[in-house]
C-alpha cells in the first residue's frame, strides 16, 4: 500500500478500501461521497494534513523509535513524558481546527496499550507477541494507515460474564484456531472513526477468567477483510448532514466522531497479527492501559472543543447585544475555568507519566481517570452555560431554508436581527454551531466515551490509596 501522506491520499485510500459499510440499512459504495459520512472523514483527514504544516509539525509528528524516521504522531509509541504532553497539546490543537472529534486517538492509544502489554505477556509466558507487534507497528508507521482501536463489546446481559451469555458472540471471541491463524466472531460497539479507518486493533473489553480464554484476544485486521461489516451509528440531527445550508451546525466536520457497530462474522486473522490469545490473566492489564491512555486524552480534545464552544457563546452574546452584561461575562469565565480544568488534568497525568518495562511511557492512571471523570461532568456544565448565554433561540430557530425563502426570508431576517451591524446569517450560524456542539450525541459521548463514569470510580477504589489516607488521618489525631 502506498504510504498515506496528504489529505488527498487519505481520501483516495478510503475509496479504494471497498469495505462493507451500511448507513440506514443501505450499503455505501463509497464512504467519501456520502454526505453524512464525509464530515467525519474531513475531520480525520486533518490529522494527515496538519502534520504537513510547518506551524504544527512539532506536535503532529514524532521520530519513530523503531525506524528513526519522521512519522505521524498518531502512530508513535510514547518515548518520554514530553511525548505524553505533546499528545495532549496535539489533541487540543486539532480540536481547534475541527470543533469535533477527529477519531484517530483511539487507534493511537490501542497501539501504545498493546505495545506495552505484549512485552509484559512475553515476559510472563515466553510468547513472541512483542516482536510481532513491533513488525505490525512498523507497518502502521510506514503506511500511515488509520487504525481504529476496538475495545467495547456489546456485552449483552451485563450481569453475566462472557462465557455465561445466552449468545456467546456478544463478546468477541476466537471460534477456531488454525495452523495459519485464528477465526474470530463477535462485534465491537461505538467504534469511533470506524467507517473511515483502514484497520482495527482489537482488545478485550474487560478482565477475563480462565473459562474465558477465547475472549482474551487482541489482534489486528484490515477493515476490508472478508466477514467484517460496519453499521454507522445514527446521531442527533443526522439528516441535517445531508442538507444544503448551515443547519448542521458544523457542516465541514460534523458532530463527535461518527461511530459504528463493527461486526466480525468468522473473520480470519493470521498469527502474525495476533497479540493476545488465551492469556486471560493479561486481559485486564491491557484493558486498564488502553483505558488510561484514552482517558488521558479527554482534557486535550474536549478542552479544545470547549474553546470553540466558549468562543461561539461569546459571539452569540455579542451578536444579540448581551456581551456587556456582567452575568454573561461571569458565565464565559466559568466556561473557560471548566475547560482549562479539563486540560490541566490531561497535562497533569501526562507530566506524572512513567516508563513501563517495554520502554513506552504511560500516563498516571489515577489522574487520567480523574480527568475523564471530570469530562463526564464539566462538558455538561459548559454546554448548559452555552445554552444559558445563547438563549432559547437555539432550540426554536427557523430553518436555514426559511432565511433563504423568497416568501418568508424577509421575516426571518427582520425578526432574528440582533445587534446592529451583525448579519442575521452570522447569528444563525453561530447559534447552530452551539446547538451542534452542546446537545444530544455530543454530550453522551462525553459521558461514555473512554468508559462510563462508574468505570472511573472503580479506579479510585483501586488506585486512590485509601488505607494510607486513613493512616494519615489517624496519625494527625494520634489514634493507634
Amino acid at each position, binding site marked *: 500500500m502506498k504510504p498515506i501522506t496528504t489529505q488527498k491520499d487519505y481520501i483516495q485510500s478510503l475509496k479504494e478500501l471497498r469495505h462493507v459499510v451500511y448507513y440506514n440499512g443501505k450499503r455505501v459504495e463509497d464512504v467519501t461521497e456520502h454526505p453524512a459520512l464525509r464530515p467525519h472523514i474531513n475531520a480525520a483527514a486533518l490529522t494527515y494534513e496538519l502534520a504537513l504544516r*510547518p506551524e504544527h509539525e*512539532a*506536535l503532529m509528528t514524532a521520530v519513530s523509535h523503531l525506524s528513526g524516521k519522521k512519522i505521524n504522531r498518531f502512530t508513535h509509541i510514547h518515548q518520554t513524558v514530553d511525548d505524553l504532553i505533546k499528545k*495532549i*497539546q496535539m489533541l487540543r490543537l486539532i480540536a481547534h481546527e475541527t470543533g469535533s472529534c477527529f477519531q484517530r486517538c483511539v487507534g493511537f492509544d490501542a497501539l501504545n496499550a498493546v505495545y506495552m502489554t505484549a512485552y509484559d505477556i512475553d515476559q510472563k509466558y515466553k510468547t513472541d507477541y512483542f516482536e510481532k507487534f513491533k513488525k505490525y507497528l512498523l507497518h502502521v508507521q510506514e503506511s500511515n494507515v488509520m487504525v481504529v482501536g476496538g475495545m467495547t463489546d456489546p456485552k449483552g446481559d451485563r450481569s453475566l460474564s462472557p462465557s455465561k451469555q445466552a449468545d456467546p458472540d456478544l463478546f468477541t471471541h476466537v471460534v477456531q484456531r488454525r495452523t495459519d491463524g485464528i477465526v474470530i466472531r463477535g462485534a465491537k460497539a461505538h467504534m469511533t472513526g470506524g467507517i473511515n479507518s483502514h484497520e482495527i486493533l482489537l482488545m478485550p473489553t474487560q478482565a477475563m477468567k480462565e473459562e474465558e480464554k477465547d475472549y482474551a484476544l487482541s489482534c489486528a485486521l484490515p477493515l476490508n477483510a472478508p466477514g467484517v461489516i460496519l453499521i454507522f451509528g445514527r446521531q442527533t440531527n443526522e439528516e441535517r448532514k445531508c442538507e444544503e445550508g448551515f443547519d448542521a451546525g458544523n457542516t465541514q466536520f460534523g458532530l463527535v466522531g461518527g461511530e459504528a457497530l463493527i461486526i466480525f462474522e468468522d473473520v480470519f486473522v493470521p498469527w502474525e497479527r495476533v497479540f493476545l490469545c488465551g492469556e486471560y490473566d493479561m486481559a485486564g492489564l491491557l484493558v486498564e492501559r488502553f483505558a488510561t491512555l484514552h482517558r488521558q486524552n479527554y482534557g486535550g480534545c474536549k478542552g479544545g472543543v470547549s474553546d470553540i464552544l466558549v468562543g461561539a457563546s461569546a459571539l452569540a452574546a455579542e451578536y444579540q447585544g448581551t456581551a456587556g452584561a456582567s452575568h454573561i461575562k461571569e458565565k464565559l469565565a466559568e466556561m473557560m475555568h471548566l475547560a482549562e480544568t479539563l486540560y490541566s488534568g490531561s497535562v497533569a497525568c501526562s507530566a506524572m507519566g512513567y516508563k513501563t518495562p517495554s520502554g513506552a511511557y504511560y500516563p498516571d492512571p489515577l489522574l487520567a481517570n480523574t480527568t475523564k471523570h471530570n469530562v463526564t461532568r464539566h462538558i455538561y456544565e459548559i454546554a448548559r452555560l452555552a445554552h444559558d448565554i445563547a438563549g432559547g433561540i437555539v432550540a426554536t430557530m427557523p430553518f436555514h431554508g426559511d432565511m433563504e425563502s423568497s416568501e418568508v426570508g424577509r421575516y426571518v431576517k427582520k425578526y432574528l436581527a440582533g445587534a446592529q451591524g451583525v448579519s442575521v446569517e452570522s447569528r444563525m450560524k453561530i447559534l447552530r454551531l452551539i446547538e451542534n456542539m452542546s446537545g444530544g450525541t455530543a454530550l453522551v459521548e462525553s459521558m461514555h466515551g473512554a468508559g462510563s463514569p462508574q468505570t472511573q470510580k472503580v479506579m479510585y477504589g483501586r488506585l486512590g490509596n485509601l488505607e494510607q489516607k486513613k493512616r494519615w488521618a489517624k496519625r494527625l489525631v494520634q489514634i493507634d
Partner: protein
Amino acid sequence: MKSHKKKIGIEKRIGVKYCGGCNPTYDRIQVIRQLRSCFLNRFHFVLSNQKTLNGLLFINGCQRSCAVENGDPNGPGSFSISGENELPLLIHWLTTLEEKENNDSLDSFRSADD
C-alpha cells in the same frame, strides 16, 4: 567585483521555526504574512532546516516558547517571538539585521576594491 555588488540589497533568507501551536494567543501565520508584506523582496521566509540562512526566527504561540526548545534564541542572528505585541521588536530586529548584512556586504565589496 560585480558579484560583490549583487549581494547588497538582495533578498535575505530567514529560517522560521514554529512551536506546535497547541493553544496560541495570536495568529502565528499572520505574523509571517505581515513580515512578507512589510519586507517585500527584502526577506524570504523559509523553513529553518534549509541552508544558507541569514537569520533564524522562532515563532511561539505563547510565553511557554516551545519553538526554542531545540535552538538558541539568543544566538547570533536569531529572534524569538511569543506574542503579537512583540511584532515591532521583531521588525526592528529584521531591519537591523538587514542593515548589518548590507554593511557587511558593502565592506566586503570595499575590501575587494582595495
